[in-house]
């Protein structure tokens, strides 16, 4: 019985550790390295990336949630550090332009088809 409890405890602990490690990796993949800007913090070996990795580790230990860590870092470096930046008023057009074009395109095709049908009649 003791063995079974021990094994269950071991499995429980390992899943906990894995979940924390996965969360950390996910956060690091969503952060941009400011020194080598084509890379994520996770991929970068720069000194800056190493410090950020360590800070993210500390913040997770302190009990901060993923969003709180993003908030902390974007407060210090601006939304530039986030690879998935939040929608801001000055980027509305950029985010919604494809949808607007899609609707306008659909409308245009609909009107063209409708006109041709009327002309044929």
């Amino acid at each position: 019985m003791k063995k079974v409890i021990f094994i269950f405890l071991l499995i429980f602990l390992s899943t906990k550790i894995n979940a924390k490690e996965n969360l950390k990796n996910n956060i690091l993949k969503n952060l941009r390295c400011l020194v080598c800007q084509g890379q994520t913090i996770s991929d970068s070996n720069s000194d800056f990336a190493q410090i950020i990795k360590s800070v993210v580790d500390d913040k997770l230990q302190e009990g901060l949630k993923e969003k709180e860590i993003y908030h902390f870092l974007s407060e210090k470096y601006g939304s530039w550090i986030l690879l998935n930046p939040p929608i801001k008023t000055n980027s509305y057009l950029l985010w919604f332009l494809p949808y607007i074009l899609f609707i306008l395109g659909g409308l245009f095709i609909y009107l063209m088809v409708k006109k041709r049908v009327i002309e044929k009649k």
Partner: protein
Amino acid sequence: MKKSYLILTSIFFIFIFTIFYLSLGKNKTYNTEDIVGNKIDEIDLELFNDSGLFNTKEITNYNYIALNFWASWCAPCRKEHNVLMQLSKIKNLKIIGVNFKDNHNNANSFLEEMGNPFYISTKDTDGKKSINFGVYGIPETMIISKDMVILKKYIGPLDLKDFKEIERIVKK
């Protein structure tokens, strides 16, 4: 009808061209515009030569602070040191140095050789504290007001143009 199609297509292409022109013309490198105007956190920094701590709240005791991040191994820091020495002569401004991930003896030799412009010297041995100030490479300098608001942030070595700008800011 053909005319209206032509106008519509032209408007569409001008619109797309404008979007691309505005987006591609933007500076794609990191800048500090999001940070200026923010208040700095209350952080404890280790004093450089003593065992005590300097809390950034103490900044409220001075009119203007230049928070400079430096290291003896950093060549651009050597380049900007003369400007820092000049800045240290401005009455309304106190320079707080944060020695970044440095060897203590090398840092002391650097200051002995080049002069010490710092009113208060602190250190960040593992570089983690500097993240609270949005530092990503040294040298970096922040001009902070009495109410702990970042007025200006300089990335890279300070030059004569920056000196004049800082002088203008602190004389206001």
